[in-house]
């Protein structure tokens, strides 16, 4: 049973490609805050991104980067400036904001 639990935990962790690095996550988040508010807590017409589900946010950022999602094109200009790993770190960071 214990082995099974360990195995399941290992499989679950496979779906997360990178280990979270909170220091880099925060550094990468700094320019996001200019428009999305400090720590992503926007109170304006620009979407709030604080506390979003990490995988949802990561998928959304990848969709912007690959052009699957467009909106005003602004997010495409930014996401193309980040590696997938950096986008995932960002997603971790904002998902953990209370």
């Amino acid at each position, binding site marked *: 049973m214990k082995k099974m639990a360990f195995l399941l935990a290992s499989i679950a962790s496979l779906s997360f490609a990178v280990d979270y690095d909170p220091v880099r996550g925060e550094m990468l988040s*700094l320019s996001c805050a200019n428009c999305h508010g400090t720590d992503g807590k926007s109170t304006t017409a*620009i979407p709030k991104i604080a506390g979003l589900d990490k995988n949802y946010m990561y998928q959304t950022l990848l969709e912007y980067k690959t052009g699957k999602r467009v909106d005003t*094109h*602004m997010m495409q200009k*930014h996401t193309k400036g980040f590696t997938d790993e950096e986008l995932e770190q960002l997603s971790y960071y904002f998902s953990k904001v209370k």
Partner: protein
Amino acid sequence: MINRRDFGKLVLGATALSFTACNSLASGLSTIPANKKRVVIVGGGFGGAATARYLRKFDSNVEIVLVEQNKEYYTCPFSNAVIAGMEKMDFIKHDLSTLAKKHNIKVVHAKVAKVDGANQNVVLENGEKISYTKAVVSPGIDFKYEKGYTKENEKHAPHAVKAGEQTTILQKQLENMKDGGTFVMVAPADPFRCPPGPYERISLVAHYIKNNKPNSKIIVLDQKDKFSKQVLFTNGWKELYGDLIEWRAAQFGGKVVSVDPVKKIVVTEDEEVQADVLNYIPNQKASQLAFDSGLVADGKDWCDIHPKTFESKLVKDVHVIGDASNAAPMPKSAFSASTQGKVVALQIARMLKQQEPLNPPKLANTCYSLLSPNYGISIAAVYNALDDKIQNVDGAGGVSPETDPDGHIRILEAKYAYAWYESQTADIFK
């Protein structure tokens, strides 16, 4: 027990003390207490305020002193909307009181004479000194007064690229211009504060003229041959204002030979242009404070920095951010200054704890410009700060799409321009 004579001495002493306290702008800051570290930030604009606000976020113990000469700060972003009568001065007014109250930052309102790197202190104009462990300098720009333009006659031909009194002067001149008048802008050579700024201003002045003084015209005499978001601007001008705006490139009649700011006459290589309102934006360089502090190398106009930390290449432990720094290819913009301030705050917080600076830090810029209240365009870029340079990330960034057949992107971007302003200012002043 104290007798009456002693009591008298005490009162005298206390009076003397309180006088000293009144005259002193920076009392108790000439030395740093043992086992304390102090970061002194010079300039309370987008760069300086972002540094202060975020350094406190990263380090709850370090002493932070922010020195800014003005109690009220008017932002250049959205000052063009004020000039065109769309917004009032209050819309662009901010102050540092929240940073002081909520974020435990000591705000000193005083004019700085120079940063003395050799003695690690900031020297105020009244001679007082504030010692620092690290200094961050974000002093903005100054002008090259040449071709007949002087500081004294700025009020006749306002530049209005330092927001405040200059903004009001230009707004009033436009308001008082006769219908059928000529609004002339002289746009500066690169590099200068806010690359799309002059062209956003021309757009919004055109918006004002179209609605209020439809027989007037606009001439732009440019000291360069191309400008930021040019295709988007010129297409938008045609669409919104027909042939109201005449833009002359430097090589096709834009080049200014001399100016008479009082008579509002600009002499170009081909002719004399008589303006009713003359918005003269001179060529620019780093703030005089940067020169007086030895932060600008001989023959240069801007402060060279180590890209990863923005530490001056000339003076140790002094970091220069914002418009005064040479951070090309980053533009001299409020957004650039703010992200630079945040990254520098993070790097300084690490250095003070004997940790290595993060490598490579990432920087970005995003600027929205309005062509009318409901017509916005944007530009963005992402950068990596490497050892020897700041580099554009390939494939990232760019401008708004050239075509917007149903117009919905322009409307949305106008809405985002306002949100961008609200977010940016809240992020650092609140």
